[in-house]
């Protein structure tokens, strides 16, 4: 059993996927709930352009905070996200190879793919797939994206999301996330526990509710403004901010059931507009990634570049 640190695990996954044709992206510098919301997934799965990328994404889920008391749950955890477009037919085998690459002898473990479909109503997105269980423990979410921003996708992308803390805990046989080693002798607990405590207290008890409602409206307005100006990427960032503010209000217990549906719809409307506009903007650019290095096409039949 490999005794990997948190960063060892990240390095091995990055290396593995880089060797298998992925561009290693950097985390999005906006608070998001999951790696899926990074434009490298949510926007890139749209349209015909091929895309293979892997990246770490800190994922903030205000309602999951446990003040640093729960050995398994975190208000912010780290995901390693891989998006493969189109999903190669051997994607499950590639995934299993990635587990071998982090040192697992799969003949001595139990690996199962159990149905787990994914749906993100605020993104107008859904997919089907599995949770992947290693010895009974969910370590990865695997999704074949079917729709994003309300748009039927083609080609279909595969999204592979590794839960990094879980995997490290399991591989290093630690019973608490705060006992794992981040790297170079630094422990995850000493590095992150204060963060977990303070943000739990903030999201559950302290966050100014009125201010957050105001922020929501401001962010929403700015997102619409950007969309009206055909600036889809800034618009999408403001949309993500709306989403995080909504999650904060939700954790704070400030969203009633009636409001909830309405607010989610507002975020969804923005995300759907972003998706449509992004697709249109890529089309206007001639879908540049169909020709990933930006060189003139080798095949003259494809046509001369303007």
């Amino acid at each position, binding site marked *: 059993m490999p005794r990997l640190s948190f960063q060892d695990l990240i390095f091995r996954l990055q290396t593995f996927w880089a060797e298998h044709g992925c561009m290693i992206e950097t985390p999005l510098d906006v608070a998001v709930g999951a790696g899926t919301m990074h434009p490298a997934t949510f926007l890139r799965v749209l349209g015909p352009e091929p895309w293979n990328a892997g990246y770490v994404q800190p994922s903030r889920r205000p309602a999951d905070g446990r003040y640093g008391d*729960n050995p398994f749950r975190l208000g912010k955890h780290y995901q390693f996200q891989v998006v493969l477009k*189109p999903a190669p*037919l051997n994607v499950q085998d590639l995934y299993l190879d990635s587990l071998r690459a982090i040192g697992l002898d*799969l003949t001595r*473990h*139990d690996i199962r793919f*159990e149905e787990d479909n994914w749906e993100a109503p605020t993104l107008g997105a859904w997919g089907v797939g599995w949770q992947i269980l290693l010895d009974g423990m969910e370590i990865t979410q695997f999704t074949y994206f079917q729709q994003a921003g309300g748009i039927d996708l083609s080609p279909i992308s595969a999204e592979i999301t590794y839960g990094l803390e879980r995997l490290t805990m399991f591989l290093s*046989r630690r*019973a608490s996330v705060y006992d794992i080693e981040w790297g170079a002798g630094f422990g995850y607990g000493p590095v992150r526990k204060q963060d977990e405590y303070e943000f739990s207290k903030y999201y559950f008890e302290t966050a100014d509710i009125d201010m957050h409602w105001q922020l929501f409206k401001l962010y929403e307005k700015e997102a619409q403004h950007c969309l009206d100006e055909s600036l889809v990427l800034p618009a999408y960032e403001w949309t993500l901010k709306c989403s995080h503010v909504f999650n904060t209000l939700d954790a704070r217990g400030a969203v009633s*059931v009636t409001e909830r549906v309405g607010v989610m719809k507002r975020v969804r409307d923005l995300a759907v507009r972003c998706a449509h506009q992004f697709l249109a903007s890529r089309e206007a650019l001639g879908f540049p990634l169909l020709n990933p290095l930006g060189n003139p096409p080798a095949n003259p039949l494809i046509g001369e570049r303007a």
Partner: protein
Amino acid sequence: MAEYFFELLTEEIPAWMHEAAHAALLQQLTKLTHDLGEPAGDRNPVIVNSTPRRIIFFLSRIPLRENDREEEVKGPPIKAAYDAEGKPTQALNGFLKKNNAAIEDLITGGGDYIRILRQIKGRAAGEILQQRIPQIVESLRWPKMMRWGNGEHSYIRPIHSVVSILDGAHLPITIFGLASATTTVGHRTLAPQRIEVTSYNDYVTKLELNRVVIDAERRRHVMAERARILANEAGGTPAIDASIWSQWQYLTEYPGVVRAEFGGDYLALPEEVLVTVMRVHQKQLPIRTAAGKLTSSFLAVLDNDGDPDGNAAYGNSFVTNARFADAKFFYETDRKRTLESRRDQLSHLQFQEKLGNYLQKTDRIEQIAAAITDDPETLAAARLCKTDLVTEMVKEFTELQGNIGGIYAREEGMPENTWQAVYDHYLPINIDDALPRTRSGAVVSLADKIDTLVGFFLVGARPTGSKDPFALRRAAQGVVQILLNRDKRSVKIGIDKLIDVALQSHEQPSNPATQQLKADLLGFFTERIRTLLEASAYGFAYDEIAAAMEAGWESSLTDLVDRIAAVKAMRNEPNFLSILDSAKRIANITAGQQIAASIDPSKLENAVESRLASLAAVVSTQIEEMIGERDYKRALETFAAMAPELETFFDEVMVMVDDEALRRNRMALLHKIGSAVAGIADVTKIVVDRREYRT
């Protein structure tokens, strides 16, 4: 006879979908073998099976080819087939040549056209299979389909390879554009190599060597045996749980079970929570002692026959402990507040847009319950029954709604009657569910369900066709189940009264609109009552139920059951059959006729008529009394005793006479007799078997 074997290698198919897919395939393939001319035999020649990522089938006895048959082919008109000299024309020669026939082959006699019989050779089985197998496999409908690649096809999961073998040889087919071959692969991680197969038997043997057990039943059996041994070692037995087994057998290709432990401290959490986490969230089987006590050991499925390094035991413990740690957090958070103090929070939880929040719903439940009972313990349960909806535990484990409230009420030291009523008040949900344990629980459940039914009918959200998003049919069925019960939990209230009380709690005045709603809702209940009674252990026939329901059921369902039982008990008595026949005759004669308001004794013309009238007068009074005493059987017997007299009347007295006054008086007499038992049943609805009648 030939045999055909097929395997589709896919990615992991959800466990719960396999059995329906088997049934659909079996049906289609049986039809296929039938079409091919499969001779009838004792053994089903079609085998369908599956593993998480393989669908296989085997057709063991199929004819090598279809039967040959003859077909008539029409040629040119006879007039155009021969020239003036009787020689064949160009048209006839062309026709013969095209059909490879000679002039001797022509069918003689009849018709204006040249005809020949063409011999059609039955197609070879392979040719037919090549056409039909892809259709059958591709058209299989799955509950949730996906697209892959460029999204051309929609299926349960992407497909990887197809094996198609007819009598030891490859029979090329394509499934969604993927060409078949004769190779497959072994277990995903234990034996991932490619395997060449030549037949079904060869396939089963080689797959087993490559760590795949093809037969789902066998996988289940292996795991059940292993589970028993492992539980035994831990001093217990695995919980009996068919839903877990039916999932496990499709979660593994190489069946195994592992035993793991969770922290003993967690046994202090409510047992329902522990069991729900294990069963529903982790698909694990709890182990119980002989005395039924939960142990800290449990079982989990493995896609491997063992756990050599203890990894799976560790992993399963790890994840279950993590879940329990969360549950403990929710439990401790929840316990900081009483249920009573959560009632305010219910005002923030919407029940339905137009029906307000859960506090309002709770108030209505309380009001309805108060109309049934003044027992303070029951009313306390009504007051608190929904408070667990705002607990962390129910937010996380929604399937435990009610149970959690009951457990917390128990821990707050409330009377048994109260906490059990909260715990049980969603029951019964399904037709085979137990009823609430106590009468209090039954009352709260009734109040909750009738409030929901009346509420949704008020806002126009009624079930249509197969659409019943708010499970109103189930709610109505639950109401009926509770009201039919006669033991110490029985609640004696009619559905009409329940609806009235619920309408009041919704602050609805009595007006034509609410009367219409009530009529609609009663109609909605009629169906549920009929269905439940037909399926019940009473063994009532459809016509017995219909007859008794016609006499009313709105004020008491147990009374309805008594009346049906009386009808059932009487229906084979010859006298009763005879009077049923008469009652129908009366109904037919009096239908649409002017009937005198009462019988005028001065207009009773002859002795037979007078005798019947005085008999009817006496008998009607007696029957009325018996009905008052709910002695329905005796009432029906008394009714039946009039049969001979009535028959004599029909034999000797003409009803449809021209004298209108006389006719109307006779109608009145017949009507009086006909309606004597109307309070028990509309006996004309009983279907009389003439043969029975004659004996």
